């Protein structure tokens, strides 16, 4: 049933630190690797070795330039499903394949009943759902549902593949419904925020803003005059003569 369940007490999700993310794409590639073999398999690619390689990925890392002048900075921005509390991608689904789990709030697609109508991807403002041309169904982040409860794995591996792979500790996994959890405390301390809250979908995943610069006062330096002589100088005329002489 694609009507939403009662709000779950447990709200599993990710907290992504935009201060420490270095934009290495390890989260995206480890996600692709894990999910090509697990719940979301197959995760197909088109023209993988040709001129227009593209395919289904559940996590994408943008890099933005933010601010102006000496205060501008690069912010790397991983983008995946936010496991919203009241998502439209679930309620628009005509088949019941798209659903939100009552037990832990994870939003999933049932690969056996999805008809691939793409309407859920139209309803999502975050671009979190991608259509798998090879499989004919919609794919999205599963929060690695096949890892986090997997008792055959070592306890430290029972986190989403992206969290396990992140070399800078920019991705955190936990229960955002529990105010005492490590992720909830992190969000409270660092003023974690929602993306596009005006849509009212109440994302569970939170983002942590880049920290303020405190290394030094930033004073813009005047751009120095280039060393090279401008056109029309004696040097230019000399090199033009050399060029002409050698071209003969």
């Amino acid at each position, binding site marked *: 049933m694609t*009507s939403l369940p009662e709000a779950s007490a447990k709200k599993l999700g990710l907290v992504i630190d935009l201060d420490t993310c270095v934009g290495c794409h390890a989260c995206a590639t480890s996600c692709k690797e894990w999910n090509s073999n697990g719940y979301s398999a197959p995760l197909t690619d088109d023209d993988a070795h040709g001129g227009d390689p593209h395919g289904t990925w559940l996590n994408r890392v943008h890099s933005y330039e933010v601010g102006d002048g000496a205060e501008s900075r690069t912010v790397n921005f991983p983008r995946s499903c936010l496991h919203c509390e009241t998502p*439209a991608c679930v309620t628009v689904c005509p088949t019941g394949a798209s659903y939100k789990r009552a037990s832990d709030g994870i939003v999933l697609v049932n690969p056996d009943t999805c008809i691939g109508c793409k309407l859920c991807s139209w309803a999502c403002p975050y671009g979190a759902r991608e259509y798998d041309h090879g499989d004919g169904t919609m794919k999205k982040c599963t929060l690695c549902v096949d890892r986090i409860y997997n008792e055959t794995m070592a306890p430290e591996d029972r986190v989403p593949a992206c969290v396990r792979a992140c070399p800078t500790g920019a991705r955190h996994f936990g229960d955002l419904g529990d105010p005492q959890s490590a992720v909830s405390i992190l969000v409270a301390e660092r003023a974690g925020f929602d993306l596009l809250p005006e849509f009212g979908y109440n994302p569970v995943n939170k983002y942590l803003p*880049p920290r303020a610069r405190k290394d030094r006062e930033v004073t813009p330096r005047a751009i120095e005059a280039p060393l090279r002589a401008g056109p029309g100088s004696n040097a230019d005329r000399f090199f033009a003569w050399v060029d002409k002489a050698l071209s003969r």
Partner: protein
Amino acid sequence: MHPAYSVIVFTTASGAGYGLLIWLSAGVALGLVPRTPALGFTGLGIALSLVTLGLLSSTLHLGRPERAWRAFSQWRSSWLSREGVAAVATYLPAGALGLGWVFGETMPGQVTTAAWLAIAGSLVTLWCTGKIYSSLTTIRAWNQPLVPPVYIALALGTGGLLACALLPMFGADARWAAAASVVSLVVGWVLKRRYWTAIDSAARTHTAEAATGLGHLGTVRPLDPPHTQPNYVMREMGYQVARRHALKLRKVAVGLLFLMPLALLIWLLAPLPAFAQLTLAIAAVLSGVIGVLVERWLFFAEAEHVVVVYYRGGAA
């Protein structure tokens, strides 16, 4: 939004089919058309064939068409599911109408009752089609209250043109159908103009700054894309039509969908030989159908999804 041809054909064909079903039902219920079996068989046959063709075409849009039957289950929350349920439910009164009209009534009042129910079912189905689009808050050009009324008006307009071509073939009076088509097309034209004004003036309220939550640091500009080739999200949701082409195509749509059929309908009112009347009516149908195809293509091509701000910055 990427204009998927299967969806454009679906809404155009089934829209005209429901429009014809509505006018034939109204005609027979109000005693405006003769209850000759040949007219009932041909007219309802064409209407239901168009509807069925459209519905089958819509399944071509699916990645797993063999699972399409599952789409009837989620009518509690999904407008797409409601559309499917309403479309199938409308076959029942339409079938009862057809049987009563062609083979005679098995119970008194069958034709009239079934006709009114078929009209109601058709209108509900068309309304659901419009709501699929207008309920999406992510797409400014679709999240407009005028979208469902425009779908209904254009279905009535194109269906009315079909009725104008069909009725004279069976010696029936088509003047009421011409009047109905004129009213539908004029209403459709007015609504469509208001819709275009609305989407042109609607504010672009969703910015890259809000989408990334980084607005407090300044403007947000894409530096490195997440992937080198366009992905599904960009291909499906990032479709862009040049503004000047869109304006030109709006004029083409207005000319073919409204101006040309209206002129031909007025010409039809003059005393003409039957053959000339039929030629004019068929020309009006062709013009209207091509016009509605252009209008539907633009409805997709002009619609911009909010997700594009992650890829190109700015606002949507």
